[in-house]
């Protein structure tokens, strides 16, 4: 089953040309997809259209087969949760549990159920011991995990992370990626990860590259990063490990493209000893 399906979707912000041009794109249920692209390539526009925060000028968007319209917008948003970039601008309450409950209260769940949802969501992101903590005193990574919990409390089937790791330190980034991977593997939640960190894309099933409102590449991450020249034309950089592999290959060490530290070390060791 397709979790998301865009057919010939176009969108523009006023007169400044297209943000998305006749986009065709789909995501299977349970998939973990990375979306890459330089600033202004249309990644966030795509995320906002999928959640109905923006309305397409042309084309159709289907969520689990259902056509997204103004009428079913609120129902569909229960299925598609979105987490944004800034950990300091997403909280609506001052205490963790109030913030996580916000979405669930908004859709009118009954009290007992909200309590159970908060338990589930905080456990899933590893923040159960912070239930009554003050959000402003948490670290960036913890704040983002609370934001994810707020989305989880609605039991979404798709989760979109729009550069949710961009403002975090390495530890915070790792926390988020681990939580998201776990949700994908254990809860079967479909994940769209929009990111500038090429290393994060290596963890996904499929990577999609956007440029000027169009999808220009989609493939397994390792295959994408093998097409170096092409990536550069889209103003994207390669992961450092890929840059190093290329450099070694040019020098005559035939490393494969496993793009994994231990494997690469093994290959180098074989070659030089």
């Amino acid at each position, binding site marked *: 089953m397709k979790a998301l399906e865009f057919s010939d979707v176009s969108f523009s912000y006023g007169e400044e040309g297209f943000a998305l041009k006749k986009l065709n794109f789909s995501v299977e249920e349970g998939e973990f997809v990375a979306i890459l692209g*330089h*600033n*202004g390539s249309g990644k966030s526009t795509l995320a906002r259209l999928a959640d109905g925060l923006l309305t397409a000028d042309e084309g159709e968007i289907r969520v689990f087969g259902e056509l997204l319209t103004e009428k079913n917008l609120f129902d569909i948003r229960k299925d598609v949760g979105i987490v944004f*970039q800034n950990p300091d601008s997403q909280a609506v309450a001052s205490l963790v549990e109030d913030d996580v409950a916000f979405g669930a209260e908004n859709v009118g769940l009954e009290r007992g159920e909200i309590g159970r949802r908060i338990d589930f969501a905080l456990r899933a992101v590893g923040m159960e011991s912070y239930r009554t903590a003050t959000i402003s005193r948490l*670290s*960036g990574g913890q704040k983002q995990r609370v934001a994810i919990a707020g989305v989880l409390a609605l039991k979404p089937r798709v989760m979109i992370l729009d*550069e949710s790791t*961009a*403002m975090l*330190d*390495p*530890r*915070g980034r790792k926390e988020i990626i681990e939580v998201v991977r776990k949700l994908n593997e254990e809860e079967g939640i479909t994940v769209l990860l929009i990111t*500038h960190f*090429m290393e994060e894309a290596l963890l996904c099933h499929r990577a999609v590259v956007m440029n000027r409102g169009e999808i220009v590449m989609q493939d397994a991450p390792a295959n994408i990063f093998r097409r170096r020249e092409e990536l550069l034309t889209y*103003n*994207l*950089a390669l992961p*450092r*490990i890929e*840059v*190093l592999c290329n*450099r*070694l290959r040019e*020098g*005559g*060490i035939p490393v494969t493209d496993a793009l994994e*530290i*231990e494997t*690469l*070390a*093994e290959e*180098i*060791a074989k*070659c*030089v*000893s």
Partner: protein
Amino acid sequence: MRIVTEHLSYIYNERSPFATRALDDVSLTVEEGEFFGIIGHTGSGKSTFVQHLNGLLRLPSALKRRAKRGDTVLTVGEFDLADRKTDLRALRRKVGMVFQYPENQLFAETVFDDVAFGYKNFADGKPSQEETEAAVRDALTTVGLDYEAVKEVSPFELSGGQKRRVAIAGVIVTKPELLVLDEPAAGLDPLGKQEIMELLHTLHSSWCKTVVIVSHDMDEIAENCTRVAVFAEGRVKYVLPPRELFKRTEELLALGLDVPLTAKLTLALKKRGVEIDSDFTLEDFAEKVLARRRTC
């Protein structure tokens, strides 16, 4: 400008239930001409430390200092920050401070006005229109923007990378001798990151003799810095050049810090009996591995 710090401590909300010791007896010297890196976790004291460098955070009074472990010393170039009479305006003209996400601080209606603000603020007397224009033109050109094309534009209409350049222009417009940047490349796309780092090198070799950056990106640190200070729990754990620092990969990982890719590989190779001695830049590491291959 040479920075000398001895026995510097700082406590937020002192004498309240929320008291937090952010710096604990920090001693650290940065030589003039360095491209100095500061790394450490969120909450390790990095930002508190750099905020002392242009007097945003002040030392406790002399009386309180004497009661502490040793005499606190903090000098930046010719400025003695332990002296309450130090001219902070003169200091801040020479010490440019670029905060995290500096584009959030843009405020004026045009790029020109935004960059001119700092210049006018710090000039002696009232600068003429020509002087201001020359300074703003110079600053915008240096950060790689086309002066004529952007001067009348609202800074809010620019792209993320451009906004950050404008914000940096607004700081370097006074031609500071020391430039301090808190995570200058954070949040930019990979190309934007690369461009900002190139810009910092341009500045380092022209206007700002000494550059201090706070960064979480260890690859960035390994590629760019002359020396690195590692902060942990308000203390300075190490001050070493990257070549020496990243030999301590295991200690750094134990501190919960990341290390550059080259350091992870060096460690993984060592476990397999292959010793590679590089300066941890990608180029040098690859070179050393290839040299090793040629000899066997």
